[in-house]
C-alpha cells in the first residue's frame, strides 16, 4: 500500500465531527447527572442557608427582605455562642488526645498474637457501633447517684456512701462527658492504630532490637513516624466529630448545669429548632463552617496532607 493510500484509509476511519465531539464530551455527559444531583443535594441547601442568613426569619416573622450583615453582627455580641464554642474547644482538646492515647495503648496490647484476640477486638469495638444518644443515656444511668454502678463501686472502695452528682456538680460534669466520649470512641482509634501498627516494617523493629534500642527509642524513631499519617487522619476525623458533638451531651446533661456544657451544636439546635431563630441559626452555621474550614486547612497543611 502506498503512503497516500494509507493516509486516505486513515482519513476514512477518523470519526465525524459529531463523533469527535461526542467522544470528547461523553465522559462529562455520563457524570453530569450525578454532579447535578450532588449540587442539588449539597450546594442548594448551602446557598439557600446563606441567603436565609441575610434575612430576618424568626418564629413569628417571615421577613425575607435582605438585612445585610445584621445576623452576623449579632454573632459577635452573643456571649452564649462564644461560651458554647469555648465548651466545644475544651471537650475536643481533652477528649481527642485521651482517645488517641487509650486507642494507642489498646492497640499496643493487641498487636501480639494471643488466644481469643479476635473475640476481644470485636468486643472492644462494640461501643463504636452504639448510637451516641444511647451511649449517653446508658452513661446517665451508670452515673445515677442512687442506682448507678459507678457510685456503688466507688462506695465499695471508699467504705462509705459516695454520692457524686455527676451531671449536676460542675466539678464532675466535664469528666462525665469525657469518660463517656472516650469510652465510645477510643475503640475507633484502636482499630485504625492496630491496622497501622500491624504494617510497621518488622525488619526495622528487629534491627533495633538487635542493636539494643529501648522501647521508647523504638517508638519515637520507628513506630510513630511509620504510623503518623494514620494518626493524622484519625485525629482529623475524630476532631471534626468532636466539634459536632451533640448526642452524648444531650443525653447526659442537655448542656447543663445552666449552659455549662452547651456545645456549639447544642446551641445551634436550640436556636434553630426550639426558638425558631431561623436566620440567626443560619448565620451561626456559616460561622462554624468558616471556623472549621480555616482549622481543617491549617491542620491539613501542617500534616502536609493537603497535597
Amino acid at each position, binding site marked *: 500500500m502506498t503512503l497516500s493510500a494509507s493516509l486516505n484509509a486513515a482519513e476514512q476511519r477518523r470519526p465525524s465531527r459529531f463523533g469527535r465531539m461526542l467522544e470528547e464530551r461523553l465522559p462529562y455527559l455520563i457524570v453530569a447527572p450525578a454532579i447535578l444531583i450532588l449540587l442539588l443535594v449539597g450546594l442548594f441547601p448551602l446557598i439557600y442557608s446563606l441567603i436565609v442568613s441575610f434575612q430576618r426569619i424568626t418564629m*413569628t416573622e417571615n421577613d425575607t427582605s435582605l438585612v445585610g450583615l445584621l445576623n452576623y453582627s449579632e454573632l459577635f455580641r452573643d456571649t452564649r455562642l462564644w461560651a458554647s464554642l469555648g465548651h466545644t474547644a475544651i471537650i475536643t482538646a481533652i477528649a481527642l488526645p485521651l482517645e488517641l492515647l487509650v486507642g494507642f495503648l489498646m492497640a499496643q496490647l493487641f498487636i501480639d498474637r494471643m488466644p481469643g484476640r479476635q473475640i476481644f477486638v470485636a468486643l472492644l469495638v462494640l461501643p463504636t457501633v452504639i448510637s451516641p444518644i444511647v451511649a449517653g443515656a446508658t452513661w446517665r444511668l451508670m452515673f*445515677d*447517684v*442512687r442506682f448507678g454502678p459507678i457510685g456503688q463501686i466507688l462506695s465499695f472502695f471508699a467504705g462509705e456512701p459516695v*454520692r457524686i*452528682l455527676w451531671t*449536676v456538680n460542675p466539678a464532675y460534669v466535664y469528666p462525665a462527658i469525657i469518660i463517656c466520649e472516650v469510652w465510645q470512641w477510643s475503640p475507633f482509634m484502636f482499630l485504625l492504630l492496630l491496622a497501622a501498627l500491624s504494617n510497621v516494617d518488622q525488619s526495622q523493629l528487629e534491627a533495633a532490637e538487635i542493636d539494643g534500642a529501648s522501647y521508647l527509642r523504638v517508638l519515637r524513631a520507628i513506630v510513630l513516624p511509620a504510623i503518623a499519617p494514620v494518626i493524622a487522619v484519625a485525629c482529623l476525623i475524630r476532631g471534626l466529630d468532636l466539634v459536632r458533638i451533640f448526642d452524648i451531651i444531650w443525653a447526659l446533661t442537655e448542656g447543663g448545669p445552666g449552659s455549662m456544657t452547651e456545645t456549639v451544636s447544642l446551641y445551634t439546635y436550640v436556636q434553630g429548632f*426550639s*426558638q*425558631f431563630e431561623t436566620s440567626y441559626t443560619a448565620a451561626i452555621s456559616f460561622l462554624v463552617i468558616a471556623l472549621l474550614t480555616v482549622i481543617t486547612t491549617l491542620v491539613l497543611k501542617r500534616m502536609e496532607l493537603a497535597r
Partner: protein
Amino acid sequence: MKFRRFLGAFAVLVLATGSAQAADKDAADTAVEAAKKYAGTTISIVWEAGLQSLDPLNYSGPQWEKLTGIKVKVVEVPTDQMFTKIMQDFKSGAGAYDALNVIPSWMPDLARAGALEPLDKYVDKFGYREELQDIAAAYRDNQMQYDGKIYGFPDDGDVMLLYYRKDIFEDPKMKDEFKAKFGYELAPPKDWKQFDEIGQFITDKMAPKVYGAGFFRTAPYPQYMFQERFRMEGGKFFNADSMKATVNGEVGLKVFKQMLAENKFMPPGVEQWNFVDNLAAFLQGTTAMTISWPPYGRWAAGYGSGEEALKWVPKSQVAGKVGYALTPLGRPELGVGFDLSVSATSKNKEAAYLFIQWLNSKKTSLERVQLPYTLRDPFRLSHYASEKYRALWPDAPAYLDTIKTSGEKGLLDLSLLQQDKYDEAMTKAISSLWAGEDPKAILDRMAQQFDAITDKVGIENQKAVYKVWAAKPGAYPQ
C-alpha cells in the same frame, strides 16, 4: 287565611320540636351526628408522647371511629418538642396535623403566628358554648382565648397539689415532739417556713427510711415552683412600665435560697430527680411530702395498679395513707395544662373540630379523666362533682375537692410572646442553682436574659401582652 295560620302553627311546632331535640342532645352527640358525613376520612392529632397518648390510642380514638367512621391517627410527640413540631408543620404549610394538643402558655405565640384556627364559628355552629361554662373558671377564663377569640378548649386540669403522709402527720409521738419543738401542730404546712421546719423535723427523726420531702428537681417542674413561690412572696416578673425584668430582687433571692436549702432535708441526689424518680420515692414511702400534678394522688391510692400500661409505676406502699392539701401559701401553680385546638393548615378542619368537641364534651371528658393510665386531670365542675369519680377510692372525694379548690386558687403560668425563651432562661437558672452557683449572680443573669428576649420581641409588643396577662385574676395574688 286559615291555611296560612295552619302553616304558621305547623312551623312553630316544627321549630319547637327541633329545639327540644337539640336541647336533649349534648355536645358529644351533636359532634357525633355532624361528624358522620366525614366517615371514611382520617384525621391526625398531635398528642404528648407516653401515657397521655394512651387516651386517643386505646380509648377515645377507637370510640370515635366506631361512632363516626372517622379514623384517628395519633402523632406522639415528646412535650419539649410539641411546640417545635407544630410550628414546623405550620411554617412548611404541610398540613400534616388536623388537631393539636397545645400548652396554654404557647397560645399567644401560636395564635399570633396564625398556626391555630379560631374556633368561635364552630362553637356556635355546633352549639358548644353552653357546655364550655362547665369548665372550671381557672381554665376556661385563662386558657381558652387569645385576643378575644377561642383558640383551644382547656382539656387538662393541671394544678400542683401537696401530698403528705397522713400516718406520719397523725402519729401521736411525732405530733407531740413537733409541737414541743415548734409550738404549733404538725399539719400540712401553711407557708414555706413551716414546710421547711416539718421537712427537716421528719428527716431528723426518720431518715434514711423516710425523708421530710422530695421534689421533681429537673426541668420543667422547678421553674413552675419558682413562678409560684416568687409571686406568692410578692415578686413581680417585670416592671409594667419599662418591661425591665425584676426577677433578681430580694424576693427572687429569698426564693432561690430557700429552694436550695430545702435540698438538704431531701434524699441525697434529689437535684437529679425527674417526675418518675419523685413519684417512685413517694409511692415507696421514702418521702413524707411532695408537690406534683394530680396523677400522683390517684396512683398513690393504688388506682389503676392492675393496668398493664401502669406496670412501670411502683406499687404504692402508701395507699390509704396519703392526704391532699393546697401547696404552702395556698395559691398553687396551674403548671402546664393542655388545650385541644385545630391546626390552621388542616385540610379537615371541621372534622378535626368535631373530634375535639366530642373529646372535650361533658360526657366524653368525664370518662377520659377517669382512665387510670392517662394523665388527664379533672377540669370540669361536673368532674369534681361526679359521684362515679368520687366513689373510685375511699379518699377520692377529698382528692377531687382539693383539686377543685387548688384550681380555683391557681396561679397562671407566665404567658408572653416567645414564652419558651423565658421558660428556658428560668430552667437554666435553676439548673445552675443546683450546681452551686451564687444565687444572686444567677438571678442577675436571668434578668439580663429576660431583658434581651423582651428587646428582641419588641418592648411595646411584649408590654401589651404582659398587661393583658397580668390583669387576669390568676396572674398575681391579689
